[in-house]
């Protein structure tokens, strides 16, 4: 049987509106990358293309191709508009 991990995903701005969630905890297969997590999310929610987003893992910017570990906090970051 495939090994799984639990991660939390936090949503902001348009992604929060689209998911109607601040955060959620999901169970995914071990070995998943940020990108593959997003591919999964896109089957559930109406989300923008990942090309428009940055990725943060445990509050640091990371590559989309980074493998996600058990307990990681994952955030997909829409283009920022502060200031």
């Amino acid at each position, binding site marked *: 049987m495939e090994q799984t991990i639990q991660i939390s995903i936090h949503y902001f*701005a*348009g992604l929060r509106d689209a998911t109607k969630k601040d955060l959620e905890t999901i169970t995914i297969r071990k070995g998943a990358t940020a990108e593959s997590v997003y591919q999964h999310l896109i089957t559930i929610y109406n989300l923008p293309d990942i090309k428009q987003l940055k990725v943060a893992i445990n509050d640091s910017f990371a590559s989309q191709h980074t493998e996600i570990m058990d307990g990681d906090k994952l955030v997909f*970051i829409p283009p*920022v*508009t*502060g*200031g």
Partner: protein
Amino acid sequence: MSNFFITQEVINLNLIVTENPDHQSGAKSVFEGIVRDCNLGKSVTSLEYQCYEELAVKEGSLIIGEALSKFDINYAYCVHRIGLLNVGDTAVTVLVYAGHRDDSFKACRFIIDEVKTRVPIWKKELYVSGKSDWLQGAG
């Protein structure tokens, strides 16, 4: 200690930095970003700023550090307000002290430019029409 802050409170520069922190500074530059009553032709009543705070503080602090190493300045500070802001409210303030004005201007501009493109803060405009929209980058 970092000099980048996120606050839900009204930004009051006088309360933050009441005096020149040293006596080697001949130049002080301040920038404030303010909520306008219109954007791209739509009438704005207020703005909601949302923030990914852990990363925002980390990235903002990095920007302050970059400014201190890139420019000949003595002090740099930035605070960004989040939550619901009204037209006329200050959303972000940058403050720089330097020996001379060239570096104070350049560092102040660098900080606000970098904050606007790198720090994970988003704004949703609430319009007179009752509608609202998350802005789409490059504000």
